[in-house]
Every structure is written in C-alpha cells, then in structure tokens.
C-alpha cells in the first residue's frame, strides 16, 4: 500500500474533493480559504508522491512541493488581506452577503 502510487493519488483525490466541497459549501470567506488550502495540500501530496515514484522526477517533486507551499503562503497573505479589507467595509466574513454586484 505504501509502496503503491495509486494509494497516495487516491488519497490526494479524496482530500482534493473534500476541499472542493468545503469551498462550495462554506459561506465564510476564511473557511473557503481553508478549503482551498486543503486542495492545495492534496495537490502537493500528489506531487510528492509522483516525485517519489516516477524515476525521471528524482527530487523534483520535493522541490516543486516546496514552491507550492511558498505560493500558498503568498496566496494566503493576499487573501487574508483582502478579507480584512472587505471586513472593514461590510462587517461580515460571510461571502454570500457580498452580492452587491450581480447579473
């Protein structure tokens, strides 16, 4: 099982789906952001798994995973800054109350 790429990929897929569900179902902006983080982690898992099992990738998987984490951090920074900015305006973190623009 641990020696099987498929196991890790399925795990990754499941985590990705859970993250997707969270993103679709949660109303709180930060909860949505957390869901995205779950998705990114799922992808990272897949990348690391590939890095381990696919010979051509050697350590590249690890390297990419590191970069993805950095990007995730940057994304979180920006996202949270935006959340804080809008919270100042709207006094709520619930995204579905942000619907002044539609149609």
């Amino acid at each position, binding site marked *: 099982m641990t020696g099987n790429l498929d196991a890790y990929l399925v795990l990754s897929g499941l985590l990705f789906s859970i993250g997707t569900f969270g993103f*679709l179902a949660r109303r709180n902006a930060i909860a*949505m952001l957390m869901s995205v983080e779950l998705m990114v982690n799922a992808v990272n898992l897949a990348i690391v798994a590939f890095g381990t099992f696919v010979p051509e990738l050697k350590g590249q998987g690890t390297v990419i995973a590191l970069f993805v984490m950095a990007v995730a951090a940057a994304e979180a920074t920006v996202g949270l800054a935006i959340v804080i900015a809008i919270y100042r305006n709207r006094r709520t973190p619930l995204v579905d109350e942000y619907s002044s623009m539609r149609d």
Partner: protein
Amino acid sequence: MDTGSLDQWLVLALLGLPLAGFGLTALFGRRMGTKAWIIAVAAIVAVWVAAMYLVDQTLFQHAYGDGGLHFRLYEWIPAGSFQVDVNFGLDALSAVMLIVVTSVGMLVHIYSVGYMAHDPGRWRFFAYLNFFMFSMLLLVLADNFLLLFVAWELVGLSSYLLIGFWYRRRSAALAAKKAFIVNRVGDLGFALGIMAIWTTVGTLNFGDVFTRLPQLLASGGIQEWQMIGICLLIFAGAVGKSAQFPLHVWLPDAMEGPTPVSALIHAATMVNAGVYLIARTNPLFAEAPEALVVVAAIGIFTAILAASIALTQTDIKRVLAYSTLSQLGYMFASLGVGAYVPAIFHLVTHGFFKGLLFLGSGSVIHSVDEEQDMNKMGALWRRIGITHVTMLIGSLAIAGIPPLAGFFSKDEILGDSFKNGFIWVWGIGVVVALLTAFYMFRLMGKTFYGPSHVDPHVEPHIHESPKWMTIPLILLAIAAAVAGLVLGLPFDGGLIHQWLDPLFSATESVLGHGGSTFQIAGIDGVLILVSTAVAAFGLFAAWRLFGFFGIGPQAARVAAVTDRFKGLYTASKNKWYFDDLNDLLFVRIGGLLAAGLWWFDVHVIDGTVNGIASLTQSSGRGLRQVQTGHVQNYALGIAAGLIVIALGYIVLVTR
C-alpha cells in the same frame, strides 16, 4: 436623320412646333396673362399648314410612293441586340390621321382662346394642349412600337393633366387619376405585346415586324396561338386608350376636364389611337382572325353598352362621352370584321362631328353659366342660334342621316359587317344606330327645344359665344356635313378608299374579304335603306318624346316608358354599375389587401426582425440570472464545468 430633305424637316416640325409651344408657354405663359394663347395657337396653326402640305404630298402627290416616308432621327436605346431608334413614318394612314388631328386640334385651340378667356390658368391649359398635340402627332408618326408606346403614354399623360386641369375640384383630380390608371391597365397589355414581338422577331420597327412576323408564322417559327396572343395584347392597349369595355370607365369621368379637351382628346383624337393602332398593325391581325373576332365582339358590345347608358344620362357631356364610346365601338367592330377603311373613315367623320358636338356643348354650357345638367336647360335654340344649328348638323351626322358625314361611314361599317359574314355585328350595329339617333335627339330636345328649365338667375345672361368659339363650330359643322360626301362618294370607291385601300388590301385579301363589289341596287342598297330607316325612327321617337322646334316634350310618356323598363332604366342610369364594381374591387377590397399587407409588413416581417432582437435581449436577460453575485454559485458552476469537461474528455479518450 438619314437625309435632310425638306419633308423630313417638316415632319420634325410637326413635333417640334407644339413641343416648343409647350415649353415656351410653360415657361413664359404665366407672364403673358390673357395673351398666353398666342404662342400655342400660332404653333398649332403652323403645324396645320405643315401637316396639310405633308398630307398633300402623301395622299395626292404620292410623293413617297405606297410605302410612305420613313426616316430615323437617332439611335434611342442601343441595348445590345435590342436596338430601338427614334424613327418616323408617314404613310396614307398617318396622313389621314394628320388631317383629323391637326384640323380638329387647330380648331379646338382657336375655340379655347374664347372658351378659356376668363380662366386664370389659361397658360397652363395652352401649354398642356400643345403638349398633347405633340404627343398625339408623335403617336401618329412613330415608326416603331416602342416610340408609339411612348406617345401612347404621353397622350395619356396629357389627358391626365387636362382632365385634372381644375385640380382644386376633387372630382377632377380623381377623374384624372382614374383615366391614367385605367389607361395603364391597357398599356400593360400593350407593353407585354411589344415585349412579345421583340422576343419573337428581335425588332420593333413596324415595317420589319409586319413582314417578319407573318413569315415566322408561315415558317413555323412561332405558333398560331402566339400570334393571337401578341394581337390580343396589342388590342389590350387599344382597349385602354379607346375606352372599350371593360376599360371604358374612365372616359365619362374624363368629362371633368374643360370642354375643349373633351372635344379634342376624348372625342376626336386620343381615343382614336386604339383604332389607329389596330389599323396600323393590321398585317399582324390578318394572321390572327380569331383575335379579330374578339376585337369585333368587344367593339360592338361596347357600342351597345355605351349607347344604352347614353339613353338616360342627364349631363350633356356625359351623353356625348357615352356616345363617343359607342362610336368607338363601331370602329372596333369594323376593324374586327376586317373593314379597315370604313373604320378609319368613321374615325375621320366621327372626329369632325363629335368634335363639333363637344365644342357645341361647351358653347351651350358656357351660355348657361357652366351648367351641364340637361334638366336645367331647354329652349335654347332661339338664344344661341349658331350653336344650335351647328349642333343640329352634328347630331344629324352622328345619327346617320344622309347625306351628312356619319351616314357614309356608319353605313359602310354596317354594310361590310353584313357582307363579311358578321350578321350579329350588323344586327347589334343597327340597334345601336337606332339608339344613337334616339339619344342624340333626346339631347337636342332637352337642350334646345321644349320649355326652358334654365335657372332664372342665369336666364337673362344666356348669350351666344364669342367668335373665337363660333367660327370653329361653323368650320367643323361644314366638315361634318360634307366630309362624307367628299371622302365617301362614290360608295366603296371614294377618296378614302383610294388613299387607304393600298394599305389594307393585302390584309383584307388575307382575311378573304373585300372581294365583293358594291351593288347599290342590290344588297348594299337594302342595307342603306335599313340603317337610314332605323336612324330616322330613332330620331322620330326622340322627337315625339323630347320635343322639337317648339313642339313640347311629352314628359308623361317619358315617365311611362321609364316605368315600364324600370330595372333597365336604373341600370342604365347607374351605368350598369361598373363604377360601383370597380370601387368595390379596387378601392375597397384592394385597399383592404394593401392594409393587410402593410399589417403583415409591420407585424410579421418587421415583427420577426424585432422579435429576434428582443429574443436576443431576453435570452441575455435570462442568461444574466446566472450571475447571482454569490461566489459559491460561481464556484459550483466552475466545479460543474470541470466535471462536465472531465467526463467529456474521458468519453473522448475512451471512445
């Protein structure tokens, strides 16, 4: 122009003078005030002189031989294989027409100087008259079908302008429009006929068409029905212009125009154009005898139809108008039975006496303060002597009382009908002759004899017309009196036959007529007697009913007669309801159709266009509902899109 001979120049002058007269009068006539007639009348007098010279050259000197004078002015429409020139021809037929057109035209012009003296629009009138003369002369002189067609429509235009001369009167404007449009119905057929001719023989020049088309028929190049078709299409044009049934409805209404116009255009010249056309195209009709039967039938039917209506009309000009229709019917009947020369003969005599009658009626109307209702006239013979005498001559002439002009021409028509085997034409023709005599003397009686019904206010002012008007009347009366004698004697061999026989003999021989000789002591004599007797009977009956030189009319008997034939009387009085039928068909139903189509245009066609536009808008509006403003909805959309695309790819890949 091919050569510059004097005669060709004169032919051109025939056209150029009235045209110049029209242009100058139109441009400067207004400033000339009461003298606006000078240019126009001068032009027509000059035209008359020139025409007479040309007539002399053609008919008496035979300067151009039997074929006549033909020349080309310039190339008009060079459209590849379709080449039409402006070319003119002058032969015996044209010359005879010239006599009528220029003579009556000149006299009407002169008459109009007096008649229109007090009308502020006289400059327009003379301009239009000149324009008409130009058109009519072009019609007579044109040497190909298309040019003839141009003239054909231009006389229609002149007629339109002159009928609508008093444009402030709604009835005049309507009548003008009606005349033009009804004429166009005929023109439509004529135009199609011209197209058919060109498509079959590739030329429109009279000479070429008349030789090639029969050849083509003989060689099997076209079928006989095609020939008949062409002839009938041409005849359709004639029906329109000469106001034959069923396109006769415009002519009575055309009496809205000034009376000189009625005399010139709607009696003596333009309406004869149809007769001229059939006569001109006789070589074609010769190949299509079936078409000729149609011509005869339409002609004689129109004759009796119009005569029956004329019996009951009270408007003096309308009686004359129906009379004109009736006489034109005679001419067509004559053409139809293959009696071409009598048809033209009648055209000439009718031109004179009907012109005379109309001008006389104008004089009458003038004298009673523009009143046209005969019920408001009577006993005028003492007050307007010259008019009375001249009109009496005219009436006798049209009634066919020898030895006036009408007798000779009408008699030839009836005689030839009988002899050519068209007994039914002859029979109806005799009845028409009876009716003609009757309604003409009804007119005379109601107008000149019997007690006066003139409005008391007008009564004191009744006066004879000025010299400008009476002199033409006298001249025309002379013509109406002697034209028959001059042209028609000896019977079947008079001048008119000498002139025209060469032109028509070929055709008449093709038709198998014209071979019989005239027998004054035989059948012809009998026929003459019959028709004269019939005319005399009609005259007598009218005299008994409507009075004569002081003999009072018998109103009670008139009423009795009308009561006995109540249905017929009302139908006749209402012109057999043709106007009502037309109104229903074209004004009401046509109007509904047009309104319906417009509705269709706005609501269906444009509605579709606008519908597509609003469909776009509403689908856009529908689609924008997707944009709910909620991020989760968007995300779900994206996820759904992802799933769909994934499934799509998987299907694509695994298929």
